[in-house]
């Protein structure tokens, strides 16, 4: 059998393309996967869940660019997701702009904010960088909660649909949003892949490995790091905007540190440093989260004795435990495990190179 690791780059792109075509056809098909999806694939409920899982895959990809490629452990990535969601929601509510100009205005705000906050936080590296980004995100969280007039406070912000085209509103049109989510995933994937293969991408990867050496070679790491930071933030904000449209609103949870941790968990589950891993992680995490929540409310759990019932009725407990086990026993996450399976547990030259890159 030809091992997975030896498939060429082009084959991987073709497999990916086939998956995209299949995913695009799902709303037209009647496929039921009991236990994984809540209903047949053409029903709005299932499409909503699938679109959500695609959005989480996009978000994980944007975080992959930050953490996997550039090696910047940020605890404030949720801030830019929330900036997209709340920004668009507020612009649509407070102004008479239609959707496209509103998107553009929000995007401009996000770019400026990401540039300013990024250049501030990138003055420090490592754990201090993580703390600064966490602190900025926390400030965002406080601002959202303290200004109920603008953001809806704890209640969250409802989407104002007066200036939104009809084909994006209502349960019947969930599949349009699903297709847009799929398109966004493709766009985010291409942007991330393009950045990783660009000169700036190579420079930023080199900086992750050895910043001093990059400096000695005469390059300035700050610029490329800031570029990666801004691109990742803009991608996250796009996901936030679509999330607002899909969920018809947003809540302060989107600004919380827990939300960033969720993205981090997804990326690590999928496999740090792997684009496919981030996508698979995002989809699996969303489906798992939804199914575990459904399981928690089911009769089978309610009948168990307290010592089993309490842990099993908390999806986050199961996901958190799973996460710890993956970090301890499955380095490289899902992507790493697949790679090892494909090579029959032997380290191929390619895998060794990737491992060395990941170190």
């Amino acid at each position: 059998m030809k091992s997975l690791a030896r498939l060429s780059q082009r084959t991987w792109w073709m497999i990916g393309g086939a998956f995209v075509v299949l995913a695009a056809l799902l709303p037209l098909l009647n496929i039921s996967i009991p236990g994984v999806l809540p209903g047949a694939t053409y029903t709005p409920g299932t499409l909503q869940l699938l679109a959500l899982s695609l959005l989480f895959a996009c978000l994980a990809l944007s975080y992959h660019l930050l953490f996997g490629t550039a090696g910047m452990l940020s605890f404030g990535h949720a801030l830019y997701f929330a900036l997209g969601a709340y920004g668009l929601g507020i612009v649509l509510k407070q102004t008479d702009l239609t959707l496209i100009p509103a998107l553009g205005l929000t995007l401009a705000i996000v770019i400026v904010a990401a540039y300013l906050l990024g250049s501030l936080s990138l003055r420090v590296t490592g754990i201090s960088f993580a703390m600064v980004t966490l602190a900025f995100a926390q400030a965002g969280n406080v601002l959202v909660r303290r200004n109920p007039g603008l953001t809806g406070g704890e209640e969250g912000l409802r989407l104002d649909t007066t200036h939104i085209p009809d084909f994006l509103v209502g349960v019947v049109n969930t599949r349009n949003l699903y297709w847009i989510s799929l398109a966004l995933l493709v766009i985010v994937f291409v942007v991330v892949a393009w950045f990783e293969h660009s000169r700036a991408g190579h420079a930023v990867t080199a900086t992750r490995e050895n910043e001093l050496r990059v400096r000695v070679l005469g390059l300035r790491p700050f610029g490329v790091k800031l570029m990666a930071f801004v691109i990742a933030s803009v991608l996250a904000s796009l996901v936030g905007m679509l999330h607002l449209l899909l969920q018809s609103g947003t809540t302060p949870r989107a600004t919380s540190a827990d939300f960033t941790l969720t993205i981090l968990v997804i990326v690590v589950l999928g496999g740090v440093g792997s684009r496919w891993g981030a996508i698979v992680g995002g989809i699996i995490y969303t489906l798992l989260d939804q199914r575990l929540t459904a399981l928690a409310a089911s009769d089978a759990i309610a009948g168990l004795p307290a010592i089993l019932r309490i842990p099993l009725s908390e999806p986050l407990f199961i996901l958190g435990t799973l996460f710890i086990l993956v970090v301890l026993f499955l380095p490289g996450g899902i992507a790493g495990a697949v790679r090892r399976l494909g090579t029959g547990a032997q380290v191929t030259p390619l895998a060794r190179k990737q491992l060395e890159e990941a170190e």
Partner: protein
Amino acid sequence: MSTIVLLLITGLGLGALYFLVASGLSLIYGLMGVLNFAHGSFLTLGAFAGWELARRLGGESWVTLIASLLLGMVVGAIVAAATEFLLIRRLYNRHIEQVLVTVGLALATVALFDGIWGTDPIYVTAPPWLSQTTEILGARVPNDRFLLIAAAVLVLLAIVAFLRFTRFGLVIRAGVENRSMVTALGIDVRKAFTVVFAIGGAAAGLGGVLASHYFGYVSPQLGGSLLIFAFIVTVIGGLGSLAGAAIASVAVAVLQQFANYFLGGTGDLMVVLLLAVVLLVRPTGILGKKA
């Protein structure tokens, strides 16, 4: 004048709470390079343990309060030591993975506490003296502030004495300074890791019980909300510096109180601003040694 005194003492009380969390964080980071996200869970667990004890013994007596404080410390210390022994130790010197494990632990334990005790705040009972006030320079200061300050000062003195006068303390101080040298001298520095985690956990557990009296309730979110400020305190004070953590705790909490009162509830934002300024001017923090 009386307002300023009240804000100052309340700030000191809150700072005491921050210090109880930040001291452990800072020691652990200084020695092992681990940023412990599960520290908030140690605190929450200590608070719940104290509450469970107080519920059974009747919360109004002083004996119960002292017993619950001790129980909080013991629970925090045991859980922290177990965390180090079972999870952190396996990932020796892989700092990112160690942070990730504590992140997973924090998510899982908060969910578990939600399942066991529910998400709503549970109100605690305390000896009546704590809810009364004492007049100082015209300000009516709630008495629980004094308890907090006294506890934090005791903890600070105890940790300093431990670090200065015991053999383990010597190993830990040397380890913070240069870990590979300590190992090269044939000392098993890993024992010190467990001890440091236990000390940090004990301080956090004690802080949990005190926090439940300061805020008047326990909830699964208690640890997480304090943890973020403790992180900020640790960075401002300088990662790994105990004295820095003490100074920064008081500075952050007093600033927060004053900004909340005089600048219309902007305390949290001012703290973040202070962090940004400190990082711009002095990226290693007030007493941090190197980048």
